[in-house]
């Protein structure tokens, strides 16, 4: 086995304070150290002494997109299994360990990763690293634990989808209608029968393949000493063996050339819902950055074009929400085909066609003439402001999320310090060109939620 050299990409703590007062010309930068262990584990360290806490995040390069075809919902069910016991920590012991050391924890399953994180007082860094390494090394799961979590996950689907009006709208529904490739278009929460069919062998097989260190990134953000942290990480994670990875399936979506419309009946709802989605440009291309700014112009904030026309001028709805990777993440934390989506609730007296005509009015404007400089500048300020909130979100977890995704998907976590440049390069002409191709009516899917009559 070839052993890659450890390397450090940048160390820029001193710049943080200096640049915080920049008038918008400079990127806000933060320290990023990047290492790879001999077993392939990617390690990112980023210090911040705002508070004496530390975020430990482990990201596995396996999301619900590529779960087994006869086991929909399995990536997410498996996420639950990671809390059910490892070699040295029995059921509930992982959770109790974090809590009794003053921390909080969670995990989540998204399109292209499953993550696990703890936020703890910084002196408990070693405790958390040991525990994460323990469950990366191996699970100790019984049939009883699996059955229990099948029950919990089915209750999760019920409380979020089955027993709720608008359950799954638009975040779970829209990818299923808008995409054509199974990997992008199946039910990510899982059919209840598929959840029931999962076996202990499935769990062990999935773990062995996808939860290997060479398919993962470990990120530490917060108030800690990087040298000490790296030594601990080497101590606990280096002995874990890597595993061969299967080839990634073809995730490609064909270019859509005809508008699609669907109606879903919802017997729990009293008011109609309307959602629409467009396939977005490939990640990290110039058009991708333009799409990020179009998102700001069209749907983010009270000044956005869709808010102004749908809420203020027409009074169709109290609010329109939307975004790239809407409700399942951000425009930064996925790796494959993606949608830009927006949705709203309206009255029975207004027809979806009327609303779509108003949507078209706003969209056609950006497709037919270049946006003015003031609009583009405002979009850039909004984007930076929301990016900084990402960085600071959840006590440093937001920063860890970006670092982990840039390590896993781009092998370059330092992108966190240069990504603003990609947006700055966007011109009104590129916005126009991007809108013309990607905001075509023929590139979109419209989904209406039909409520039960009355009320």
């Amino acid at each position, binding site marked *: 086995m070839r052993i890659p050299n450890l390397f450090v990409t940048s160390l820029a703590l001193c710049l943080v304070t200096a640049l915080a007062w920049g008038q918008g010309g400079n990127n806000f930068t933060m320290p990023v150290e990047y290492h790879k262990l001999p077993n392939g584990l990617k390690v990112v360290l980023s210090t911040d002494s705002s508070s004496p806490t530390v975020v430990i995040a482990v990201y596995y390069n396996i999301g619900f997109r590529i779960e087994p075809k006869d086991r929909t919902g399995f990536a997410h069910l498996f996420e639950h299994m990671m809390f059910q016991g490892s070699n040295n*920590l029995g059921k509930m012991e992982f959770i109790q360990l974090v*809590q*009794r050391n003053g*921390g909080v924890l969670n995990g989540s399953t998204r399109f292209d990763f499953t993550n696990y994180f703890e936020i703890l*007082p910084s002196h408990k860094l070693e405790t958390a690293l040991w525990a994460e390494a323990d469950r990366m090394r191996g699970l100790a799961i019984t049939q009883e634990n699996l059955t229990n979590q099948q029950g*919990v996950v089915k209750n999760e689907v019920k*409380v979020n989808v089955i027993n709720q009006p608008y359950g799954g709208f638009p975040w779970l529904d829209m990818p299923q209608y808008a995409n054509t490739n199974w990997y992008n278009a199946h039910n990510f929460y899982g059919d209840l029968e598929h959840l029931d069919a999962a076996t202990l062998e499935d769990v062990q097989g999935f773990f062995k393949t996808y939860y290997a260190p060479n398919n993962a990134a470990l990120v530490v953000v917060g108030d800690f000493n990087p040298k000490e942290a790296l030594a601990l990480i080497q101590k606990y994670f280096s002995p874990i063996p890597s595993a061969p990875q299967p080839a990634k399936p073809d995730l490609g979506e064909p270019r859509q050339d005809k508008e699609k419309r669907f109606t879903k009946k919802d017997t729990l709802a009293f008011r109609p819902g309307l959602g629409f989605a467009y396939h977005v440009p490939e990640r990290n291309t110039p058009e991708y950055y333009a799409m990020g700014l179009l998102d700001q112009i069209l749907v983010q904030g009270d000044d956005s074009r869709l808010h102004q026309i749908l809420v203020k001028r027409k009074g169709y*709805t109290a609010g329109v929400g939307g975004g790239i990777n809407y409700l399942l993440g951000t425009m930064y934390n996925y790796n494959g085909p993606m949608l830009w989506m927006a949705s709203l*609730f309206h009255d029975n007296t207004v027809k979806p066609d009327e609303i779509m005509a108003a949507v078209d009015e706003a969209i056609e404007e950006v497709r037919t003439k270049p946006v003015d400089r003031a609009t583009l500048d405002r979009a850039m300020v909004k984007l930076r402001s929301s990016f*900084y909130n990402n960085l600071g979100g959840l006590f440093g977890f937001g920063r860890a999320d970006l670092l982990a995704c840039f390590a896993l998907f781009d092998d370059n976590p330092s992108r966190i310090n240069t990504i603003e440049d990609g947006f700055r390069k966007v011109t009104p002409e590129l916005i126009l060109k991007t809108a013309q191709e990607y905001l075509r009516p023929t590139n979109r899917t419209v989904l209406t939620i039909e409520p039960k009559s009355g009320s």
Partner: protein
Amino acid sequence: MNFKRCLVLLLIILAVSALAFSQKQAPPEGGTPRDFKLPPKTAFTLPNGLSVTLVPYGTIPKVTVSAIVRAGNLNEKENEVWLADIMGDLMKEGTTTRSAGVIAEEAATMGGTVNINVAPDLTTINGDVLSEFGPSLVRLIADILRNPLLPESELTRIKNDHIRNLSISKSQPGALTLERFRQMMYGDHPYGRIFPTTEMVQNYSIEQVRLFYRNNFGAARTNVYVTGRFDAKAMETALRQAFNGWSKGPAPLVDIPKPVAQKQFHLIDRPGAAQSTIYVGLPVINPADKEYVPLLVTNALLGGSFGSRITSNIREDKGYTYSPSSQISSRYRDAYWVEVADVTTDVTGPSLKEIFYEINRLQNEPPPADELKGIQNYLSGTFVLQNSSRGGIINQLSFLSLHGLKDDYLTNYVKNVHAVTPKDVQRITQTQIRDKDMTLVIAGDKKKIEDQIKEYGNVGETKK
């Protein structure tokens, strides 16, 4: 895969499984704790009674400004439910010098939006922008607070939006259950009125909205908080200029409820529901009580954390539910404890049985010192987190202000958490979490659950 590597892998697998049978390793303890000090603050009060608190925090180049006014749904009369919310939305529709469009664009140009949130006791006007725009944000928020136009032209649209939101809320099992729970506990008090009727909203006039503003808004009821990275001098100057001269306004309304503490039960029938939504709880001591911190500790151990007893039981042991939790919900001189859970329909009765079992167990025996110690560490850890974000710091300071608590509530919090003994937890459970005095509301499929829940008494019922 070649054979040699296969063998290596096999050996590793064998070694790992062997490890599983050998004695378990204990987790490493970690290093020495670092000091946590609350971020230092600067506070001053203007001659008109408006108080200002500035807290520099963090490295992210953003600043949050929140103006929190002691007014909310508490100030609504019986036929004015949501009038405070409608007024709040109308405040964004223009001032004497700025149109709604200008407000939206100005905020966006700073990298933010102005949000107005109405709660029972407090109305918050809040913005979060890039650091360099802090003083501009102060001026914008002050203008909205002091000079709202409350234009009649937008009233019909805003009322329609609320009628639509009302209809959507009334289709959600959680909202329906909370509404009934509050009604049963607070009766005619404003805290018991979660939703208006459609007709009520339709009838609101612009005069009512404007009167509500005049009667309830003013400098003496307002705290302004600034957190994040900012130029302290420039912010102080902007704050003084923007808020000096605002009229003092009325003194806060004090209207303390007398919530019902007795066994009551109500079923909201939702035929075909896959889950039953459960609210079960009772009035408890409020944050001004000296035993409030012991109550917080008790709650975290009983049902208020992932590792708590009720959650371990009905989620991690039985798999009845996904996100059960108990909480203490507080308002001015008022609080209740409640356990909330959405459980699979056919285990509605068994879920309740386990919830009461865990309450009774904690009444009957003090928790092991170890378990309590774990919860105390958890609360001290999360206390640091609660004070480690721009929004979190504002929440903490606003909590102190509303409940009339001194800074020592925060500075002594960790010490007070650790002073709680197992016997205290048992006593607090006995005196505060009294199962015989609880209000229980369930929204679920009556046909399937009524036999399971007979023992909880006579069923008051609504059809949904």
